[in-house]
Structure formats: C-alpha cells, structure tokens
C-alpha cells in the first residue's frame, strides 16, 4: 500500500465551494438521463415477469404476441443461445431472463419490442406461460433450516461445514485472539439477536437504456449505470459479443447507491434490438425496480460482547446470516469484516453465512453489509454502557481503533480518524443539549473500507490553452466538480479553464464502477497524476523554447518558470503560450494516467441523534441529527456534506420505515413508493454535517472517499436513541410504529 502520496500544501481551489459545472443543465431539465434519449425508428421494450416466487417454466407460448400489429420482436431465454462458461456470468444471464424456472416474484420470463408502449404492454398480456408452482422460501432463517425449499442445489462452497441446508452457499470467518477467555475477564456480558429487513436503494430514476445491436456484432448502448465499462463487459460476456464492438455511453444517472453497479436488463434490450433490427428503448417501472432489481440483504445476527466495569471490551463474537436472494453470492462476509472494525480488540471472532432465498438477487447498497454489521454491535455496546452506567462516547474512545491497531478483519490501520470523530462528538453542543419527555439520544460508530481500483484519466491541453479532462465514471453526486477542481489546482489555472466529461467505453480505457466511495479518491488521484504528466510535457516545451534543460524549469500558477542559478532570466510561459506553439514544439499536449489505485484509506464516522417516541402510537420522530466523519480532505465541502446528510437520511429510512414485506405466497406486497416509504422532507430535521480532515497517506491531497460510511452508523444510532427514549431495547428493524408499540406494551 503506497503511503507516500500525500504532501501538505496550501490549496487555492480544493476546499472551496464553486457551483458545479453540470449544474445549469440539471436545474433546467436539459440533462439527459437514462430514459431521456430516443433514436430514429426506435421501438419500446417491455418485460414479462413471473407472478410466482418459485416455479418451473414448463412452456411459453408467444405466438399471439408475435402476431400482433406493431410487435417487432418477442424473446425468451431460448433466444439467448450463447451460454457463458463463467458461473457468475451465467447467473447474471439467468437473472436477466429466467431459464428453466422463475426464482422469485418479478423474475423476467419474456420480453417484447413494439412500436409503442401500449402495444408492448398489450403484447406482454398475450404471452402465455405454463408454470408449475414450487415451494418457496423468502426468510433467511427459514432458508437455513434442514428441509427448506432449495433455491438451487449444488451451489454450496467448500467453506460451508457439513450439515447446513444447501441454501447456505458460503461461510466466512474473521478475527483474532480467544473470545472465550475474553468473556471470562468481563464484568458483564450481553448476548442478543437482531434482525434487519431488506431495504431498497430507492434511487428515483428507474433503470433505463437505449440499445442497438446489428448483425455484424456492432452495438451501442446508452444506459443509466454506475459503471458503463462493467455494463459493456457483462453484456459482452452474457451475449457472446466482443467487448470492443459494443460501445457503452453512460447517461446522467438519477441515483444508484450500489443498485446500478449491476446488470439487470441491458442484455434484454440488446437482444430485442438484435432480433428486431431496430433501436430499442427499455425503461423499468417502479414496480419492476422494487420486484426485480437488487434490494440489499435482510439479516439475522447474534452478537455477544463482554465488558469490564470500566468499559473495556474483553471479548466479542458475532454471527451474521444474510439473505443473498435467488443466486449465490452475498455480503455477509462484509458484515463480518465491518462489525467490530472501529475497535481495538484483543479477542474477537465473527462469521458470516450467505443464504439463497426466493427473493430478487441482493445488490450492493451503500457500504454493502456494513450497516447490518454495525447495528447489532453498536446496539449491544450501548446496552452495556446503560447497564454499567458508562458514557457511550467515552466507552467507544476507550476501545477505539487508532494508527497501529490490528483490525478485527486483519490489516493494521495507518493514520485513521475514528478518535477525531468521537472527540468532535464529545465537544459538540448537541451532546450536552437537554432532552424532553419521551426523548432519547443515541450515538454509534461506523466503518467502511473505501476502494480505489482500475482508473484511467486523460487530460488534453487544447490549442487555446484550455483543458479538457476525460474520466470514465458517471457523475452521481458532483464528481465532475471535484475532478475539475483537482485538475485546476494541480495545473494552477482558473476553474473555468477546465471542462470534465464522462467518456464512453470506446474513448478511454477500463474504469471500475462508481462504487466503494472510490471516485474522488481514485479518479482524483489519476486526474492529479495526469495533470502532472501534462505539466512535465509543458516544462519540456518551455525548456526547448528557452534552450535550457527541462530540469531547470518550475511549474507554478499555470505557467513555466525558469528556475535555478543557470536557467536564465526568461519571462514565464503560460499554459496558453505553450499551447499556442505546441504544434512547433513537438505536437499536441496531453497527460494521462492509468492505475489500479491502492491506498484508498479506511473511513470512520460517529453519528448522534435525538428521537422522540410517541407512547400512544409508537411513532418515532427524529428531532436532531449530527454526523461526524473523516473526509481526509474535503475537495468540495458542499458535496461532502451532501454525502453525510444523504447517507444519514437513508439510514433513518432503514431504521424507522423501510422494509420489503413478503406475503405467505412469496410475493412482494409493497412494490411502490406509497407502501415502501422512504423519508420525505417532512419526516426529517436538518442534518448537521461535521467534516474532520485526517489526511489519507495514499492520496496526493489526502482525500478519502466519503460516500458510503454515512449509512453505517444510523441504524444503531437511532436504535440506541429510540431504546433510551422508550426505555426498552429494540432489536429488529425497521422500528415501525407497530413494532415500537408492541415493545412498549411488552414492558
């Protein structure tokens, strides 16, 4: 891990709050999102979905649909003649279009392309599917039991011990020391079980794409995604295409939060385009988004923590059982890694079980696995603090991980910011503000790894000396602004001299998905290095012009300056002057950088929240919320604050309202925003963001990703607040009014 990237410096652009460069088009409605583009001769696609949680598909009769006027293509799995060798790719294909059986309510079984939306919808209704309904299971604990309906046999990994139901596909273990001996040293041990419901990322823009694919194998795809390179690679793998023949362009993206790091229906659009010979636009409905695109996993967790009367944790264990949905995979291993990551523990063990069920394939959701990793741990720590009469912030400080701590999941931490967030929380006026009747204050900590990954950036110095920056990650929340700022900072030019665009897959090399809070860190790092590359070239050009050694040229304030005793007394050459004569000094000037970025720098946050519980209805009102998080270096503080606030709001929804509700028939009962209620403006207070800046050694400016950590602490922070307000410990999310009321009555 490189630790020598960071150098302290005085920033001119980074840390300011300019208006984002893509702002005007987004406040005027001109920005083009996934469903906002059309093509000449375009058809409308639509997907038929299984009404059954688990059913064998005995036959599909598409003849009536195909005979309808305006219907140009009808496809089923039989049209996908390429069978991917890779099992992961084969699973994606099967999820996009069911093979021999439908595995969940909402699983795609056929699709049409027609000249209008209404004809496409009518054609779906004319398709006849012969189902043999099979027994199903939609609960993670039920799915682990011997004798449970098996979603798919033969997928259990060797990591799973003998005796587990075949739905358990993977098991992971982390930790060090001996928890049992640790528990012997404890003055108090609390052992509890917790549950969290599946929640959806809830992005407001449904998935949408526009596809062409011709008989020569050349295709174009316009799509809202967090990673168009991933979409290209997966579609090529699923359909047996050459990746180089498929150009994917990322639209503006209307939210993702991890849910758009996967492929759900793009191969279907391409197949419809190939079969019809026309461009096909495919836009999912909100119902389809809920039923067939990734919610996060529900969880069932056992936690045991021992503590001394002074607040030192002596031993800790946790077992996480997470629902992966209809295909192998899952994120229980991430819960098992993250749960105790904020703490410096001598004796800690965790294990995670990945469990298949008849639900949609679980997808990444903002710090995947970490919220359900932290919620049980932070809840039990809070209960220990209550029972031992300890201050919850001081207790966390006493156990806090710091530089040199061996983490519960293995690595030893470099410089980290957890203590800084706890100290900031302690001294914040929120901590000492008075509380009223039926009100409680909760705190919790959270951890996320952060990520770097494959990244390409090109930076072109145009003939007039302006700069064009090409990056390959969709701008999901202001990243064009951050990249523009870092390029301007490094080059020493005004912000308006740089324009950043998101390149398509044919215009720039491979880039990882916009995930893992990686973009400001990794694309920022590559942007800075691309700028440095361009600066080196410009220094050479100036040296050539002056007839001196390139080593004798400095770059500052957007210009080359002769430097050193023997350089001569030349006036500085600005970027505009160098660009103007570039053709005569060696040709166009461009910098670029390609890297698998390491050193992302782990991230920590502490959240503090006040709630009021209505004793008559069980309703929970969030009164005050403060986020303390380490950003390393906040490039554009407004958008860092926005990540803190947005993550907290999603966590509030997860804690109080949001829940996938399945009936006994295995069907999702609340596939819409009316019944799956995400927080609305009147549900929330202002959310105060407090930015801490502990530089990340792995980034030239000290940047850490900030996007995900903010959803990790809220579940427990709110649960701790509600438990203190209600006087009873709640162990199941969401803490909806009926659950809270039941807990109050059971007291």
């Amino acid at each position, binding site marked *: 891990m490189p630790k020598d990237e960071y150098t302290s410096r005085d920033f001119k652009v980074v840390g300011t709050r300019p208006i984002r460069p893509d702002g005007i088009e987004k406040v*005027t409605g001109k920005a083009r999102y996934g469903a906002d583009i059309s093509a000449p001769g375009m058809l409308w696609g639509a997907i038929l979905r299984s009404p059954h949680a688990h059913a064998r598909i005995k036959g599909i009769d598409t003849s009536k649909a195909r005979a309808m006027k305006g219907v140009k293509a009808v496809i089923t799995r039989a049209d996908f003649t390429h069978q991917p060798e890779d099992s992961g790719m084969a699973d994606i294909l099967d999820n996009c279009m069911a093979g021999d059986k439908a595995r969940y309510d909402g699983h795609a079984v056929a699709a049409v392309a027609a000249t209008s939306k209404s004809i496409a919808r009518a054609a779906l209704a004319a398709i006849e599917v012969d189902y043999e309904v099979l027994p199903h299971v939609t609960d993670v604990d039920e799915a682990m039991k011997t004798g449970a309906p098996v979603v798919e046999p033969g997928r259990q990994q060797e990591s799973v011990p003998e005796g587990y139901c075949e739905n358990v596909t993977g098991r992971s273990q982390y930790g060090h020391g001996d928890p049992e001996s640790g528990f012997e040293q404890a003055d108090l041990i609390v052992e509890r079980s917790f549950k969290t419901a599946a929640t959806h990322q809830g*992005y407001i*823009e449904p998935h949408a794409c526009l596809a062409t694919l011709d008989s020569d194998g050349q295709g174009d795809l316009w799509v809202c995604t967090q990673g168009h390179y991933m979409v290209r690679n997966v579609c090529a793998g699923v359909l047996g295409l050459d990746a180089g023949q498929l150009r994917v362009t990322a639209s*503006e993206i209307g939210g993702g939060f991890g849910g758009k790091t996967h492929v759900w229906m793009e191969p279907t659009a391409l197949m419809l385009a190939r079969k019809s010979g026309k461009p096909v636009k495919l*836009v999912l409905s909100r119902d389809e988004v809920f039923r067939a695109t990734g919610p996060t996993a529900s969880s069932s967790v056992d936690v045991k923590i021992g503590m001394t009367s002074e607040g030192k944790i002596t031993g800790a264990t946790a077992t996480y059982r997470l629902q992966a949905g209809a295909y192998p995979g899952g994120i229980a291993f991430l819960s098992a890694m993250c749960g105790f990551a904020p703490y410096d523990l001598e004796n800690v063990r965790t294990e995670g079980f990945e469990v298949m069920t008849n639900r949609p394939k679980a997808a990444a959701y903002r710090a995947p696995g970490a919220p359900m990793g932290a919620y049980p741990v932070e809840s039990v720590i809070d209960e220990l603090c209550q029972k031992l009469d300890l201050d919850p912030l001081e207790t966390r400080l006493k156990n806090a991980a710091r530089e040199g701590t061996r983490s519960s999941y293995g690595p030893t931490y470099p410089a980290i910011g957890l203590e800084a967030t706890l100290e900031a929380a302690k001294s914040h006026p929120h901590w000492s503000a008075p509380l009223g009747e039926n009100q409680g204050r909760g705190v919790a900590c959270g951890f996320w790894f952060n990520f770097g990954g494959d990244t390409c950036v090109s930076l072109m110095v145009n003939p007039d000396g302006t700069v064009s920056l090409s990056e390959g990650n969709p701008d999901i929340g202001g990243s064009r602004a951050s990249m523009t700022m870092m390029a301007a900072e490094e080059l020493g030019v005004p912000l308006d001299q740089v324009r950043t665009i998101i390149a398509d897959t044919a215009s720039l090399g491979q880039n990882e998905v916009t995930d893992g809070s990686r973009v400001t860190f990794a694309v920022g790092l590559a942007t800075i290095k691309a700028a440095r590359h361009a600066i080196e070239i410009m220094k050479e050009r100036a040296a050539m012009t002056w007839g001196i050694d390139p080593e004798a040229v400095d770059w500052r304030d957007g210009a080359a300056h002769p430097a050193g005793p023997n350089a001569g007394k030349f006036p500085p050459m600005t970027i505009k002057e160098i660009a103007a004569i570039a053709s005569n000094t060696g040709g166009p000037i461009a910098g670029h950088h390609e890297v698998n970025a390491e050193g992302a720098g782990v991230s920590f946050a502490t959240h503090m929240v006040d709630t009021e519980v209505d004793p008559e209805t069980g309703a929970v009102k969030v009164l005050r919320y403060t986020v303390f998080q380490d950003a390393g270096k906040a490039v*554009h503080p407004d958008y860092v*604050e*926005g990540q803190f606030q947005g993550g907290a709001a999603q966590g509030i929804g997860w804690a109080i309202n949001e829940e996938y509700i399945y009936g006994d028939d295995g069907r999702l009962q609340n596939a819409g925003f009316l019944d799956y209620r*995400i927080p*609305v403006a009147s549900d929330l207070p202002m959310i105060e963001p407090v930015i801490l800046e502990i530089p990340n050694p792995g980034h030239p400016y000290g940047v850490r990703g900030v996007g995900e950590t903010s959803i990790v602490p809220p579940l427990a922070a709110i649960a701790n607040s509600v438990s203190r307000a209600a006087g009873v410990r709640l162990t199941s999310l969401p803490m909806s009014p009926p659950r809270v009321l039941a807990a109050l009555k059971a007291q």
Partner: protein
Amino acid sequence: MSRIHVTTTINGDETEYLCEAGETLLDVLRDHLDMTGSKEGCGTGDCGACSVVVDGRLVCSCLMLAAEAEGRAVDTIEGMAQGNQLHPLQQKFLEHAALQCGICTPGILVAAKNLLERNPNPSEEEVRYWLAGNLCRCTGYDKIIRAVMDTAADLRGAA
C-alpha cells in the same frame, strides 16, 4: 387505434398533439414533445419527479391524462428560466448544492416555485410539508430546504 387531438398551451406556447386515450400528460411531454425535463420516477403520483403546474395548480403529470390538457395552460421545468436567465430558485439550488444526482430537481423546482407564488414567507415546516410529495434520495433534503428558504427571503427583499 384512433388518437385524440389536443390543443393546449405549454410554457406559453400554443401546442397541438395527438395522444392515445390512455396516455398521460407525462407520456406526451416526454415521448411526443421531447420535453424530458419532467421525469417518471414512479408513475403512481408518489415521487413528484413529474411535477408540472396546470392552470396554476401543482399536479403530477403522470396522474393526468394527456387528453385532459385540452384548453389548459401547462408550465414545466423547461419554461422556468427566461432564456439564459435562471429563475432565482434555480440559481439558489446551484449555490446551495441542493442537488446531487439531479433527477428529482426539476420536479422540486416546479413545486417550490408554486409554493413561493402562494406563500412568499413559508416556515421551514411549511416548506417541508409542501415538498413532502417530492422524493429525493440523495440529499436528505437539508440543502434543498435551505435553498428554498433563502430564495424566499431574497424574493421578499427584492419585492
């Protein structure tokens, strides 16, 4: 399938279109008139991303049939700026960084403008309840509420 001929006014311009009986105003705006600033987030009137104003009244264009626009005056996000002059709300949304992904922004701007025309001095609670029909998943609403309140204060000062 026979279509219905509609004459209406959109952002001050007389507009004619043919629509199917089952098509919504949002369908026509987006698919026939290329006015894609209004977004479809749910199609059931729950998210507010398709908000437009019809004869002064804030509506979800996904819940209104296109044929019902006959003889009405429809205002959409595309008509909010006057040429290159942003509406004060649009400018304040930029200054407050009141958008992240931006998909809900057109609907929220349309709704907020309608609020300020009715109530130039709304409390924070009034802004929150007025915008409760406009879902935003990115921001936690904090900066949106601030931008609306700040715009209202500026407009009151200018009046």
